[in-house]
């Protein structure tokens, strides 16, 4: 929207599942072109927060903006109005998301997976979409796998198709939900390489990850979450080298 607004802004975000409070007041800002990594033990609410950013989860309290626009709601006369399905979909189209379990469409080939959303959501000619998708798949190193179905691809290849699929919508923000956690160790590198390239090209990214090395090398900001709150945040090298908080120290001693 406005060039000065941060790409993502959260203010006191709360989320409850029944009586369980998963997010208990998350506030942060992600600037344009910034790469933020979120680390923390499982159940700390990292994924829930990520999913709230594109309204896959509805938050219970607080405010969440993407590119200056409120997520999932319209504020009018001091009240929040839920956005209709079509509006929510339109905003989601501008945010790419990559999942831990890839979630490729198994009944479509790699190429069809990438073409599907641009064709359906944005319309446009098939030839142009195919060309675009082919370029994207080449970029993630899969130009020879266009006609393969997901079941014929390795985990690392599937995740790279998933990244290409998200990029095909030309998003202004990419969300990664533990993109390498379901991969064999030897396949992690290829996926991280693609993400590293993306960061270098200036994509705004929020990455929930356990890859501390990736966070140290690529991230501009690191957030450590535990039990629904941000325990510590700052420059990744600083946080990783000199954690100030006991809980951060404990967590890092286990994963490093």
């Amino acid at each position, binding site marked *: 929207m406005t060039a000065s607004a941060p790409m993502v802004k959260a203010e006191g975000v709360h989320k409850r599942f029944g009586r369980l409070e998963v997010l208990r007041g998350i506030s942060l800002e992600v600037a344009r072109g910034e790469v933020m990594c979120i680390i923390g033990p499982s159940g700390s609410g990292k994924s829930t927060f990520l999913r709230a950013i594109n309204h*896959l989860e509805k938050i219970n309290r607080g405010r969440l903006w993407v590119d200056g626009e409120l997520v999932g709601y319209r504020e009018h006369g001091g009240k929040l109005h839920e956005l209709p399905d079509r509006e929510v*979909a339109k905003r989601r189209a501008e945010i790419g998301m990559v999942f831990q379990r890839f979630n490729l469409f198994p009944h479509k080939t790699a190429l069809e997976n990438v073409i599907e*959303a641009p064709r359906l959501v944005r319309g446009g000619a098939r030839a142009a979409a195919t060309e675009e998708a082919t370029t994207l798949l080449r970029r993630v190193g899969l130009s020879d796998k266009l006609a393969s179905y997901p079941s014929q691809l390795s985990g690392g290849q599937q995740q790279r198709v998933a990244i290409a699929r998200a990029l095909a919508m030309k998003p202004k923000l990419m969300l990664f939900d533990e993109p390498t956690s379901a991969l064999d160790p030897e396949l992690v590198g290829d996926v991280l390489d693609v993400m590293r390239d993306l960061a270098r090209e200036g994509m705004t990214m929020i990455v929930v990850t356990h890859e501390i090395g990736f966070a140290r090398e690529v991230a501009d900001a690191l957030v450590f979450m535990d039990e629904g709150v941000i325990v510590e945040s700052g420059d990744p090298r600083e946080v990783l080298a000199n954690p100030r908080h006991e809980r951060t120290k404990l967590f890092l001693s286990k994963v490093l």
Partner: protein
Amino acid sequence: MSDVPLSAPDSHGPEDIEAVAVRHPGRWVASAIVLLLAVAIVNSMATNPRFGWGQVGHFLFDHRITSGVVVTIELTVAAQALGIVLGVLLAVMRLSPNPLVAGGSWLYVWFFRGTPVLVQILFWYNIGALYPSIHLGIPFGPQFVAINANSLVTPFLTVALGLGLNEGAYMSEIVRAGIISVDEGQTEAALSLGMTRLQTMRRIVLPQAMRVIIPPTGNETISMLKTTSLAFVVAGADLLSAAENIAGANFEPIQLLIVASIWYLVLTSVLYVGQYYLERYYARGSSRELPPTPLQRIRRGVFSVRHDPVALGPLGPLGGVERHEGGSIR
């Protein structure tokens, strides 16, 4: 370390195992019994003159029977199509977050699964007693057309409607099971790409649900084909009604029931083939390589024999060029 040779797959090891198979005397006895029973049954059917096979052959392609076959096919297609459309609609309704919409679907299924389909058909047949004329228009508002119910509800429409509405209830449960079987992550991925709920359902969820939906739907269609014979009670023109009409005149009920049974078997066999190919289509991407169809297997078998000379290469007795010329001479 570099001096240690890499281990290579060894091709000079012991030869492949050729063991003596375990004997299964029990299987041999069972096979003998099955074979004996089969021969006895066929023998009895062939030698008992009361089967009247000549008459069966005579009526098999009687034009009254064949037009009954056509009506049976039409009824099956109409009723099953109505059932599938209704089933998808009811299943999507049932999964709606709106309790009134979901409740309406539940009530429909409860009613139509809870009453015998024969009762439903008879009910539609007598609908004229309840509503002598049918008006098309807006409820409690203006009406556009009025039709005499008795002229509208022909036996065909009665049966197609009765079976179709009833089938909708069963199909909705099948479709619902299919939709539920698709991983939640698929919906999330589609939504995150900016698809609306409707687009997600139509393009991502339903095509995957088809793998679960098709086998029981094939079952339902085969069942439907046979249930159309209930048209008999409302004097329909289907296969069984046609057979019974002839039997009523020539007093050969067994022969005509055999004729009808043969046709029902032929039609269900055709459906088997259709289901097989439909299942293959929707299995795309699910297994690394689908096994060849029987047709492909036959074709491959034929071609592999025909192409054998090629393996000899251009130096073989049948060089590529010569072979082509030989073909053209013939």
